């Protein structure tokens, strides 16, 4: 049933209609978030103006984790159902997730220097996020490492699934181990421990990041589908009607040629 709901042609139609809306919404929300974060939000009573780094650091961290979860779920779906969109979604999302993780690590370092007195420590939270970054890079490298792209996709999917164990480690690292990193102050039992004047701009920035992600994801998935169609066209002179055709397009040696 899911296969019927999410066939590539329908995806192209729906995502094409939604793309400008997500693009526009992310631009507006990010602009609002930036003004709020840099101008309106008050300085923290302990951390002063340096707290403004939080408004990019924390949303980037949330996205780094959520996008990885999406890559893993899509990879699982690709392994089980062999649905072509699942693979494409995972591969389109991975570089975006790697980008968010990089932003999280870099801004965290820039925040750590004035607050902790160090750019980096090898503690549980920081190290597990660095591992997440390498998981993204490993997935991207593995997917592109094979001549036969379907084998690369399968190997990448397996890596993405195994890497899921890292997500709870990141989330709970601040509770399980002694670390310089502070424990969760928003997503925690008993509600956020952060004041609304800082929480609201944080949530606006997080929404902006999420909208930007969806826009990028649709854009990159559409790119992948266009490229797939173009590859089939240049091989056979017609677009792939069904999945069997696109499977043959990957290994032209087996193809019987245009009919």
């Amino acid at each position: 049933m899911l296969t019927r709901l999410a066939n590539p042609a329908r995806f192209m139609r729906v995502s094409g209609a939604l793309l400008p809306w997500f693009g526009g919404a992310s631009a507006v929300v990010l602009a609002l978030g930036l003004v709020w974060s840099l101008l309106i939000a008050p300085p923290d009573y302990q951390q002063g103006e340096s707290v403004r780094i939080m408004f990019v650091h924390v949303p980037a961290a949330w996205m780094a984790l959520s996008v990885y979860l999406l890559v893993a779920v899509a990879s699982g779906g690709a392994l089980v159902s062999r649905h072509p969109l699942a693979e494409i979604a995972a591969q389109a999302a991975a570089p975006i997730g790697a980008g968010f993780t990089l932003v999280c690590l870099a801004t965290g370092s820039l925040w750590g220097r004035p607050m902790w007195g160090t750019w980096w420590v090898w503690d549980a939270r920081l190290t597990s996020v660095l591992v997440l970054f390498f998981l993204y890079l490993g997935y991207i490298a593995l997917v592109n490492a094979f001549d036969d792209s379907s084998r690369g996709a399968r190997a990448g999917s397996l890596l993405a699934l195994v890497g899921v164990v890292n997500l709870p480690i990141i989330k709970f690292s601040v509770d399980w181990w002694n670390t310089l990193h502070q424990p969760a102050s928003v997503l925690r039992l008993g509600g956020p421990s952060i004041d609304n004047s800082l929480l609201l701009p944080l949530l606006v920035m997080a929404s902006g990041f999420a909208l930007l992600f969806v826009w990028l994801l649709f854009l990159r998935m559409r790119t992948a589908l266009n490229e797939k169609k173009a590859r089939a066209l240049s091989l056979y002179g017609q677009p792939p009607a069904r999945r069997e055709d696109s499977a043959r397009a990957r290994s032209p040696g087996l193809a019987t040629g245009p009919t």
Partner: protein
Amino acid sequence: MTAFETWLAMGGYAAFVWPAYAVAAGVLGGLALWSWRRHRRSVDVLARLQRQFGARK
């Protein structure tokens, strides 16, 4: 100091706050630009092939 200069100074944390925003803008903006260009190219290539083969859309 003018109000603008005070804001730029970020209470002494300018050297950390501004690079943090610059990194975020650079990485995410770069990702958006790269993805957008690649998308435009894929649309152009596909359109050219479809004209060439007279294929249905």
